[in-house]
């Protein structure tokens, strides 16, 4: 078996995982860019989107359930910002952060209460959960769709930010909060728009993610949320292309590390197992530390200029 042949399945699954991380990471990075707030509740919003789908499919047809789920998730993201972050706009940044942690635990505990802590099976969505063969390897259609959909959504988002009025307002707000307010930008609607876009992408991400890994528990959002956050920091928090590239890098590396033992054994580099798979998560966080030490602003981070 050639090297490419053994590595390919891991790369494909890594790209798919990366695409899902990317959709979550954008939510982190956009909110950070504008509010300088790390929205810890974002991963849990993602989990709630998954749970909503489980319960919606039980009562309405699938074609209605998906848009309804996305709409409700967006509403949730909007409501969280209005209830938990907006009243703290003038408070120190740390207070907002603590409020975000509070929201995160609130969502997790609500989910625990509603599901009773049991694993909920995500509904199979026809067509995208079908089995297909890519380069002689069996997988689901969603694995292949994910990266393309992610890139498409990001392209739309970048266009939105660069060529529309609300995008211009967002850019202005991210540069200087107070000044843009003086220029007549309605700061609250810009921030709301940011949260709406972020949660929309998280909702789409949840469909892709849970179709691939069909089990929703109250802590489902924690690990993907954390990895997406690392991806956002890795790419340079505040930068959208950075978050996407960071997410793909982390997804692919993680997947390859999980299979590295096998790749090496099959290709005859080693004969005994060395247990590298265990380090896949450790790798992600080591990467975070390394990047923070050597390039604190991340791969594509904005350069900080001292204001005089």
């Amino acid at each position, binding site marked *: *078996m050639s090297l490419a042949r*053994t590595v390919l*399945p*891991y790369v494909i*699954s890594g790209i798919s*995982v990366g695409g899902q991380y990317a959709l979550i990471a954008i939510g982190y990075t956009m909110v950070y860019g504008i509010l300088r707030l790390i929205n810890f509740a974002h991963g849990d919003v993602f989990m709630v989107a998954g749970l909503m789908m489980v319960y919606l499919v039980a009562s309405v047809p699938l074609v209605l359930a998906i848009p309804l789920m996305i709409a409700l998730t967006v509403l949730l993201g909007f409501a969280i910002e209005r209830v938990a972050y907006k009243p703290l706009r003038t408070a120190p940044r740390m207070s907002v952060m603590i409020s975000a942690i*509070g929201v995160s*635990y*609130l969502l997790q*505990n*609500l989910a*625990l*209460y509603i599901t*009773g*802590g*049991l*694993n909920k*099976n995500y509904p199979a969505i026809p067509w995208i*959960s079908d*089995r297909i063969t890519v380069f002689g*390897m*069996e*997988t*689901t259609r969603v694995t292949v769709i994910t990266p393309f959909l992610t890139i498409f959504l990001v392209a739309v988002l970048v266009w939105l930010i660069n060529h529309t009025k609300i995008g211009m307002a967002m850019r202005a707000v991210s540069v200087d909060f107070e000044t843009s307010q003086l220029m007549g930008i309605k700061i609250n609607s810009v921030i709301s728009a940011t949260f709406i876009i972020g949660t929309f992408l998280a909702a789409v991400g949840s469909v892709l*993610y849970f179709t*691939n*890994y*069909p*089990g929703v*528990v*109250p*802590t*489902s959002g*924690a*690990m*993907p949320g954390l990895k997406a956050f690392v991806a956002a920091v890795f790419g340079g928090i505040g930068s959208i292309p950075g978050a996407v590239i960071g997410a793909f890098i982390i997804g692919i590396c*993680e*997947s390859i590390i*999980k*299979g590295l*033992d*096998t*790749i090496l*054994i*099959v290709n005859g580099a080693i004969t005994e*197992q060395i*247990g590298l*798979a*265990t380090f*896949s*998560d450790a790798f992600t966080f080591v990467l975070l530390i390394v990047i923070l030490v050597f390039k604190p602003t991340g791969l594509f981070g904005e350069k900080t200029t001292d204001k005089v």
Partner: protein
Amino acid sequence: MKKILALAMALIMLFALCACGSQPAASSAPAANSSDNEASANPVVKIGVFEPQSGDNGAGGKQEVLGMQYANQLTPTVEIAGQVYDVELVYADNASSNDKAPTAAQTLISNGVSLVLGSYGSGVSIAAGDTFSAAGVPAIGVTCTNPQVTSDCDVYFRICFLDPFQGTVLANYAKSELKATKAYCLAKQGDDYSGGLCNYFIEAFGKENCVYEQFPEGTSDYSTYITNAQNQGCDVFFSPVSTEAAAQIIAKADTQALGMPILAGDTWDSNVILNAAKGTDVQVCVTTFYQEGADANFDAGIKAWINGDATALANNGGNDELAAVTVMGFDAYYVALEALKAAGSTDPAEVLKVLPSLNYEGVTGAIAFDEIGDALRDSAFVKECNTETGVWDFVTVAKVG
């Protein structure tokens, strides 16, 4: 004014959080026996139920509790030294987490329980062993199969078989029935149950013919492990992990056309697995404690009870397919009653004294303890999931020797 409002909001949120925290545990308590207790004036003897109600093993824990609740409903009283006592089940959720287990155990002890049943999952039982030991409260493990549960703790007993036995049975089965020559073993990192069972399996199967890998907590992408097994040319996939991970592994095995049977231990004897495997072409075999149909009267009784109680039905995964852990929970309750009768007292110390010499003929077979506190059991049932009908098909009774 604003401050008062803020304070009020904070209090409301706090209340909401408290309600969330305590509700899951409370909701699992059966409504039936609490109303009985109010009506009669008998003294109450408390039996602690130390089971996960949430987390990785939440589904299994709930099924095990079902057996106890059913038994409690059939026999709500026990006669101890000539006095009739009402039996109250006291619940504590160990959340499938080793660090929450001692707190849950302490809750039970503070509640004044005479003895404790549980837990589903070996890790939490090992973690809570010291707490029970310090308080001198005896505990009867229902389906925790790791040897350390009883060997490291003088107050822990158990009514099920052990992992060295189960691992050997599974390895023999893989070799002789499935004609496997190379096995892929997957365990969860830091999990006493799956890690231990994998080790015993590897010991029996031959280390040189096994590939052993572990996945970290919070993993959701199992596709790479499936690919690993395929690439290394294995012909059996052994993964005695939690049911939550199991459902995902089965889903991935199906979409990636795993092409080899999946073997697992008693944990997988659950409708979570049946639901996941139904309609796929994945072959799943498990060893377990009880095969449905071995006692028709019992089966009919408990099914009628499950179907008549909406909470019980939901806790059993929405259908009346019997899990072996439920039956084990049922037997454990009666072992507890026997121990109380034999002790002639509700004092934990007295109960602890009589446990080693206890004998009980349960639905799952005869129960007696050896000097370490383990059940003397020598057979396990092997079952295979029928992917068309979504039920377990009985394969064979396996013994070691």
